[in-house]
């Protein structure tokens, strides 16, 4: 039976008039996903005992209009007043959470981190000196992928390559994706990497990744407790 032209016309009528932020390019969909993952880090910080969470700009001023990077950039960029979250914990130096900043890998070359948690002292130093944060200072790094189907294996392979460059002594690196992938999941599981698939609001994956972030933040506090 041929396709009903009235049905196609009805679909065209609805699809053709969509105008939703985050729906017009793949990059925008990724931006939304990264913002969501950042919100999970903040939720984890609360669970891990953060006493305050504030928005700060590059100059360390308080921010209420948040500006996040849609493409990776330098933490010291003065092109705009990009925003990061400042997490304060009792008895520990504060942390910063960024979207899309470049970090220096083991080999001395720059790599992109979709969502990254750093000590506030490292962030301030890097902004003041116009240098990239060092991989050894990373507390949490998250590679975020929004995909409309099964993700290609090469994305997981790139993540494994990135880990060889930024695997910090104590920090945790995660690969998170909104869908799943038979091949990528199998490879990451076999290689004992941290990953989470089907990550969406109100899912078991959301609980799982938030708990993992909280554990990493608690570990940071214990390691760096000011005596």
């Amino acid at each position: 039976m041929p396709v009903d032209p009235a049905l196609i016309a009805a679909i065209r009528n609805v699809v053709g008039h969509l105008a939703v932020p985050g729906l017009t390019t793949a990059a925008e969909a990724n931006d939304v996903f990264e913002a969501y993952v950042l919100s999970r880090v903040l939720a984890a910080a609360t669970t891990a005992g953060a006493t305050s969470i504030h928005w700060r700009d590059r100059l360390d001023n308080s921010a209420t209009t948040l500006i996040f990077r849609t493409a990776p950039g330098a933490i010291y960029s003065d092109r705009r007043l990009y925003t990061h979250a400042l997490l304060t914990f009792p008895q520990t130096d504060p942390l910063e959470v960024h979207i899309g900043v470049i970090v220096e890998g083991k080999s001395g070359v720059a790599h992109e981190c979709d969502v990254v948690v750093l000590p506030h002292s490292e962030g301030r130093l890097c902004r003041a000196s116009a240098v990239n944060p060092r991989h050894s200072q990373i507390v949490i790094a998250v590679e975020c992928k929004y995909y409309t189907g099964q993700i290609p294996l090469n994305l997981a392979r790139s993540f494994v390559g990135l880990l060889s460059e930024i695997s910090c002594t104590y920090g945790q690196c995660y690969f998170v994706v909104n869908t799943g992938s038979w091949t990528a999941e199998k490879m990451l599981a076999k290689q004992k990497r941290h990953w989470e698939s089907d990550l969406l609001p109100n899912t078991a994956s959301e609980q799982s990744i938030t708990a993992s972030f909280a554990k990493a933040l608690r570990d940071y506090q214990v390691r760096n407790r000011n005596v």
Partner: protein
Amino acid sequence: MDEQDAQLAFDELRRVVADSPLAWVLANVDDEIQRGRPGTRTLDRTNEDIGIFDMPRRTSARSRKIERFTTVTPFTSSERLELLVSAVDRVLTQIPELEERALSDFRERGAREVRFADDTSDREYLLDRATVPIGAVANLVGLLRELQK
């Protein structure tokens, strides 16, 4: 729906999506179709001859030799249509959920608005709650599923 009809429906829907703000979804779908469906296949190699000359064939019962290989199977037309329908469905339902969760979390922590920008252009855009009515999404999803029948 037979495979020929599924291919026609896929082509029609692909044209509709290509002309819409969701055109970017096609790159993902085409990539997935091109990669095919990964899987494994088990082969029984018990009775295969091994190329060693002058070795007398064993006549006694051999132990079974089952080996597993990875393989890739091309998607059928129905499966391609399902991939495209699922991709559109996924974007329309997931992105608004993600936006809603992120924005409500940020606003709870004092944010008034959220913008995205980069260093390479002057372009900025506002992250806002999805404006597609839930009813419209449900209607579209229903139409897409109707297309698959």
